[in-house]
């Protein structure tokens, strides 16, 4: 079989976020990878793949991916509430992936980030966490 990369894992994480109606209604600015465009409304979510080393086993490979998922909001209460919704959506979730089996999806740490000032001079709160996602593929 062909080796599948971490792209389906990334897709599955976004699908899991979008599958939560409460979360989707809470974010006005949508979900973005890496960085959000300048004009996006708050609050919004930014996710990024941090590392995805391949752990090769007999007969298969496990991708041990780590994601950062952060919320950017104009007040800390919104930021923490949405972060809690993200945790509910992703922690211990069974992700749906093509050709891969979801083994683990767990929040492993909070991000030590603080408030920031955006280009319009507004104080922006960044709250989020790191998630460990393991996916197994039989080769």
């Amino acid at each position: 079989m062909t080796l599948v990369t971490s792209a389906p894992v990334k897709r599955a994480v976004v699908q899991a976020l979008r599958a939560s109606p409460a979360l989707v209604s809470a974010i006005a600015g949508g979900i973005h990878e890496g960085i959000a465009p300048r004009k996006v409304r708050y609050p919004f979510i930014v996710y990024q793949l941090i590392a995805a080393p391949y752990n090769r086993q007999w007969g298969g490979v496990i991708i041990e991916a780590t994601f950062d998922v952060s919320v950017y909001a104009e007040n800390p209460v919104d930021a923490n509430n949405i972060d809690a919704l993200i945790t509910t959506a992703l922690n211990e979730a069974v992700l749906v992936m093509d050709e891969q089996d979801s083994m683990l999806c767990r929040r492993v740490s909070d991000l030590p980030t603080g408030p920031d000032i955006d280009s319009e001079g507004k104080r922006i709160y960044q709250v989020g966490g790191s998630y460990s996602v393991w996916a197994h593929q039989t080769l």
Partner: protein
Amino acid sequence: MIDFEALAAQIFDNAVSALGQGALLVQERAQHLAPVRHIFTGDKYTIRRKKASEIEADRLIRAQLGLSVEGERGKKWPMTARTKSPLRKTEPGNRWAGTFGSRPAPRWRERRMEVAQQHLADYDAEMISRKAGNPHQPTVLDRRGAYEVRSKRAASLRWGHAYIGGGLRDSIKAWAPVVAGPNAEAWVTAGNDEIDYAKYMEFGTRHAAAHPYLRPALAETRQEIVSRIAAAIRESSRTGGSSMDIEIEVRL
């Protein structure tokens, strides 16, 4: 007879030593992954100094063309096999006075900074020219690079030499393992008083995407660290204080 306490102490010491080696592995990998900001326009330009051998190779050609010795604007050295400075070391105005030998000291650090400052001056002159309505001319430094050089954030010291760029990379450091009772831990840190943006590069901000370098380094070297610690434990348990073979299985 086996002295189990001595054996355990040796196993622990070797494991701590392997942990320290693992921290160095993470440091090396993180330095490889750490983002080094490109401050020059274009992709391939960088400040590169010729090697001494290259300068020597060009010396004769430059003399034939009537050019000065590289790195010494306006000075022409006699092209003899044994080059002697035309200025006496004790002569007033000789900036090489007091240096060892007859040839001037290279002053690599100052030269690198002088080059950066020259590029900054060129950039400022070009900006004034553009404001006056003149057509745009390319500059070596881009806008970000000019800011970095002006604020001295671009300059970093490594092994006593000045470099342009790479401050974050050079601030990554593996600390010696610290033993606290039955536990040992080793830290790899990034940033210092001058490099205060290490966290923002790792986690990102509203304005800039994250460029993680510490956590990927740990993720990529984790298996190697575990293997080294396991090998150190196996080796010390095999040779430590007895002729008996002891099998220890490591699961981390």
